[in-house]
């Protein structure tokens, strides 16, 4: 993905290390790095979060903003469903080759992957709840992610940040009125309540899946690969698992080698175990982010306090 060039000696060191169960940063093959999570720093978005996965303050850094808009229904669209639109952008601050149009390919890849995880029944979000009036109006959730830094495991960071952003999302209340005319025809009208205090949290966001990415290095595999490890990764498998342990999305990447089916079964089993641990970890971090946000409620809202704490 990134243009990190490793010498053959370094590559060999990483591969043999992984094969004998050691990683360059001292982790075991299934250990994950530290996570920093903050929510609610973009005031004009309906929900926002910033997540960084990495040790010692250096790591993959993603900022996600969720914006809800009312769209009017056009024929051909589902009649009683809302919609989710994902958009991922890699900033040139992550890598120089993302300058100009250089990030287009990876942007599309990540956007499609996020869309695969979120857009559909697998996300746990009830899209019917996002419908305001069938065949008339519905909510669109625009999920915009900005990747500020890439140090391995970009997909997992992206899913963490998106999950936190959606959990912190709240929508304005909508009042639907049904008016019948003298012909007996019923007509529905709606009104979005314009009150920053009168918001309802997005339903079902806690059912969103979490993703675990496995990287095959040599004869073994690791989770949460670092930048160096990604440079020697032969195959990559991302598995999204919901809180009820359903597999919501799978994507295999990496062009050097295929996965043997026996390994696949093993990985899927491990993925569920790790996802359970990750979800507990997520809840802890999310609760921390929430309490952090409410502790600064008295201070004037400014993003810089959030950046200090990060």
């Amino acid at each position: 993905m990134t243009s990190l060039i490793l010498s053959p000696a370094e590559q060999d060191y990483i591969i043999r290390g992984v094969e004998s169960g050691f990683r360059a940063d001292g982790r075991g093959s299934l250990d994950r790095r530290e996570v920093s999570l903050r929510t609610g720093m973009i005031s004009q978005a309906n929900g926002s979060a910033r997540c960084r996965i990495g040790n010692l303050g250096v790591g993959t850094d993603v900022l996600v903003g969720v914006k809800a808009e009312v769209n009017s229904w056009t024929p051909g669209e589902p009649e009683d469903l809302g919609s989710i639109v994902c958009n991922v952008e890699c900033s040139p601050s992550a890598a120089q080759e993302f300058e100009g149009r250089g990030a287009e390919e990876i942007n599309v890849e990540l956007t499609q992957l996020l869309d695969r995880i979120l857009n559909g029944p697998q996300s746990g979000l009830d899209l019917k709840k996002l419908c305001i009036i069938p065949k008339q109006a519905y909510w669109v959730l625009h999920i915009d992610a900005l990747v500020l830094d890439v140090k391995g495991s970009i997909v997992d960071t992206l899913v963490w940040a998106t999950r936190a952003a959606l959990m912190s999302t709240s929508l304005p209340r909508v009042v639907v009125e049904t008016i019948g005319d003298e012909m007996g025809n019923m007509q529905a009208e709606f009104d979005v309540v314009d009150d920053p205090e009168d918001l309802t949290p997005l339903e079902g966001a806690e059912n969103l899946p979490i993703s675990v990415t496995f990287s095959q290095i040599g004869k073994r595999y690791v989770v949460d690969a670092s930048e160096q490890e990604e440079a020697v990764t032969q195959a990559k498998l991302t598995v999204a698992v919901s809180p009820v342990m359903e597999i919501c999305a799978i994507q295999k990447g990496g062009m050097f080698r295929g996965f043997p089916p026996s390994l696949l079964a093993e990985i899927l089993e491990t993925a569920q175990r790790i996802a359970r641990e990750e979800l507990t970890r997520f809840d802890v971090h999310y609760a921390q982010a929430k309490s952090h946000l409410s502790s600064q409620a008295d201070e004037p809202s400014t993003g810089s306090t959030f950046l200090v704490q990060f």
Partner: protein
Amino acid sequence: MSRQELLSPEGLRVDGRRANELRRISCRASVLNSADGSSYYEQGNTKVLVAVYGPREPRQKSLAHHDQATINVEFNVAPFSTSERRKRSKGDKRLLEVASFVKQTFEGAIQTTVYPRSQIDIYIHLLQHDGGTLETCINAATLALVDAGISMVDYVCACTAGFIDETPVLDLNFVEESSIETPDLTVAVLPRSGNIALLQMESRLHSSKLEGVLELATEGCKHIHKKLDEAVLAAAGELAKKLS
């Protein structure tokens, strides 16, 4: 169409400021770990994040100058930055314009001859937009460049000023800026010498009024200089604490 009242008879503006008042500024250097220099700067509700890389080897050899550094600026607006979501393509002319203004401004301020055959990248992210994009970008970039330790002649401080109802007003917000009748003057100065690094005006203004508006904007730049200086000292203090 009735025109929105931008300056009340009591002399207050839409957001409750007086005519010569700046919005609240809070800024901080060294916010991203992997960048050589970075800054977060907010002026009222306009929020900008800047990352500076370099001096480093140019990406394209053909762009390298044998006697000075090349400055490269990329300006990016987050889709969630405005009240209505809008995605802009990389080739959007308005984005390119801001990037080129920032580039031109800093070409005069950075001592480019100190870094021959190299490139300095300035990546600007607008996270929230509420008027005064160019001024916040320049101020944030100054802070990030200082944080990166790049030799500069002086700080570059930018400020906007407008002219509403026969009164010069400082630091226009989005509502004031988008009113067509309001002239919108952005000026960037090097505070030590007082030289003007950038001057840009939209709409029209009687020539006799220009001096007053320019003076007000320059006054604003001096305040911003103080704020930036504080942020640089704070970042240096933190660094010193880490070393000791």
